[in-house]
């Protein structure tokens, strides 16, 4: 009847989520790009300019230079032959994005800008990479000539996919860093040019090329245009603080059901029955104690994450109702498990729940990693108590309001209702 009596399990259920949040938060904040468990990302590449036009411009520039005597006449044709090899964009596609390691978790498609943004807003893709106009031409000039034309690749991320967005950003940064450092260039145009004693000035220019010239500009997509107000991105700490909290409160439900069997085993259940307390009172107190326990647990985790990681959980007007309903749903789950336990006269139900169900629903509910890109997991996870709650909390963190999480709230209400109905039905068969 009294859930708080076991002080050891109290420490575990309160401390474990905090510990795991810390570990997972750090693990994923550092190496977001590297982890395979993040899942596959789809990106769109938008080409603002035309590669053919850029190539033509480059050829024209070389011919102009030759005409003005900057390049010796006999070398001109040789250099022109090399130009196709300076297609850095092609290198981006085949060598970087086409790299067999990269391909394991990232696929790309070339789209036009409007389509790409729409796809991003619909969540079909993770990020949009915008290759600017005159990219090839400017890159060529920057490497070969003393002129400095800033080249900026834009990465637009979806706030739902901060982890994967960061990964895309990392890859492109690697690419532009390589461009800036002349690594790619050296291997292509310039080596040939310098060997042939072409354009000493170009060589001098290379040294002065800084990373400022090739840059990846990152921004998050702004939904203001299309839907609601500005959304904030979710950090890995925020994500795992919520993920772990909603996973560990499931243990409160099964612990509650364990106590039900403990009471049968230590005969206190008989005492309670003989006091004419009746099953209703037994289940009511199970429900109330588990609900209260869950409320306390979530509150402590919120405070902890706020102090330790400065995590904001969103507007109280949304967080409080969500937390209340979540606690009620956990109380309902505990009633259901208790009634199964009492019916079976052992704690098989809550043990299975603990060993299998919690792990499963934590996985599909997104407690371990975001499941947005795996439709089946997202669908099943959305129906679990923890999955729904996770979605609700993340939305509130991003700046949504109570009205935006109505779906989540109704899922929790339905789960609670189902638990009570099933629990009552099963309990009606509990005798002796």
């Amino acid at each position, binding site marked *: 009847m*009294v859930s708080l*009596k076991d002080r050891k399990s109290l420490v575990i259920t309160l401390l474990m989520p905090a510990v795991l949040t810390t570990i997972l938060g750090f693990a994923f904040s550092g190496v977001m790009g590297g982890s395979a468990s993040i899942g596959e990302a789809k990106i769109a590449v938008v080409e603002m300019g035309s590669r053919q036009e850029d190539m033509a411009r480059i050829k024209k520039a070389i011919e102009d230079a030759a005409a003005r005597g900057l390049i010796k006449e006999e070398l001109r044709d040789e250099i022109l032959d090399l130009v196709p090899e300076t297609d850095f964009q092609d290198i981006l596609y085949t060598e970087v994005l086409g790299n067999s390691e990269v391909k394991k978790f990232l696929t790309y498609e070339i789209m036009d800008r409007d389509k790409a943004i729409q796809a991003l807003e619909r969540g079909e893709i993770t990020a949009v990479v915008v290759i600017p106009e005159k990219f090839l031409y400017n890159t060529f000039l920057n490497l070969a000539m003393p002129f400095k034309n800033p080249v900026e690749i834009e990465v637009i991320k979806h706030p739902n996919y901060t982890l994967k967005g960061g990964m895309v950003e990392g890859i492109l940064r690697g690419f532009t860093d390589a461009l800036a450092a002349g690594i790619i260039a050296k291997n292509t145009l310039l080596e040939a040019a310098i060997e042939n004693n072409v354009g000493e000035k170009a060589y001098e220019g290379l040294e002065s090329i800084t990373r400022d010239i090739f840059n990846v500009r990152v921004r998050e997509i702004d939904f203001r245009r299309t839907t609601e107000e500005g959304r904030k991105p979710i950090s890995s700490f925020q994500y795992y603080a919520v993920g772990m909290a909603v996973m560990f409160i499931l243990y409160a439900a099964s612990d509650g059901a364990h106590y039900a069997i403990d009471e049968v085993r230590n*005969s206190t259940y008989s*005492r309670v029955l003989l006091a004419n307390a009746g099953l209703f009172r037994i289940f009511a107190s199970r429900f109330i104690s588990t609900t209260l326990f869950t409320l306390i647990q979530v509150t402590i985790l919120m405070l902890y994450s706020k102090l330790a990681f400065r995590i904001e959980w969103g507007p109280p007007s949304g967080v409080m109702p969500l937390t209340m309903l979540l606690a009620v749903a956990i109380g309902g789950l505990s009633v259901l498990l208790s009634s199964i336990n009492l019916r079976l006269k052992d704690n098989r139900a809550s043990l299975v729940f603990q060993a299998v169900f919690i792990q499963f629903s934590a996985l599909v509910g997104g407690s371990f990693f975001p499941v947005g890109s795996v439709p089946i997991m997202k669908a099943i996870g959305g129906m679990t108590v923890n999955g729904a709650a996770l979605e609700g909390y993340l939305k509130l963190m991003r700046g949504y309001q109570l009205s935006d999480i109505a779906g989540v709230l109704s899922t929790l209400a339905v789960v609670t209702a189902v638990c009570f109905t099933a629990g009552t039905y099963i309990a009606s068969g509990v005798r002796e």
Partner: protein
Amino acid sequence: MLIQASNLKKYYKKVKAVDDIDIEVREGEILGILGPNGAGKSTTISMLSSLIKPDGGKICFKGTDISKDPGVIRKTLGIVPQDVALYPDLSALENLKFFGRLYRLRGEELDGRIEEVLDLLGLNGRARDRIKHYSGGMKRRVNIGAALLHHPEILIMDEPTVGIDPQSRNHILETVKQLNSKGITIIYTSHYMEEVEFLCDRIYVMDHGRIIASGTKEELKALISKDETIEMQVDRADERFTAKLKGLIDVKHVDENGDRITIISNKNSGILSRIFEAALENGVNLKSIQIKVPTLEDVFLYLTGRGLRD
């Protein structure tokens, strides 16, 4: 008649835990249910207290069938389960408070009852310690206390003295007498015949789910009044000697336990001289010999051919 149970049955898959028994409980008495492990004592009282449903038979409390309205008996019943039925992580005080509240006791009344119970059981000093840090004897006392808070008319005690020191045991036995003198009807199960003999007005002797004898101590002992029990100690166990004893006229039963031999024989049959003769014949020295007043243990032995405790 307070409780009248007839043709009670409870069968588990292979075991006939309780096999067609009749029991009646009279107002104000201490009723004993005596039997070895697995006799069906706990099952019987669980049925009497409405905790489990019988597979057959009927139990009436003051004329009302309790299967129809278990509430009537539950209100007036205090039960001391065989296993200590307390929350080990709570203190004695917290346990008593909790169970008291279940009986809708509140405030000063509850505090008063708890005080009274702690006094009665001599637990005042350590009421705030957690149960799991208590000795076996103290746990048992709190276990009894929890059944007394609501001033029950009937107290059912299932082997309340198992596994405790003699001092706690005596305290508990005295408490039972005291409670009974205040008018509480008590049903007391045990496999210690001394306890039942000390406490109980009437006794049911159970074995293998059946009642094999019932009545007052005197009535039960009268069952073997045609017999007498002779106990002796010999210097060495000797098979031929025991065989000879078993063959003697008037001997009904011989029980051998190392150098101790118990004989049940017809009363006043002049058996002693024949025992001495048999000893002499087989070269066995008798270290002691006595004719005993029969105990309930002897009754059980007589009825079943086995001791109460193996």
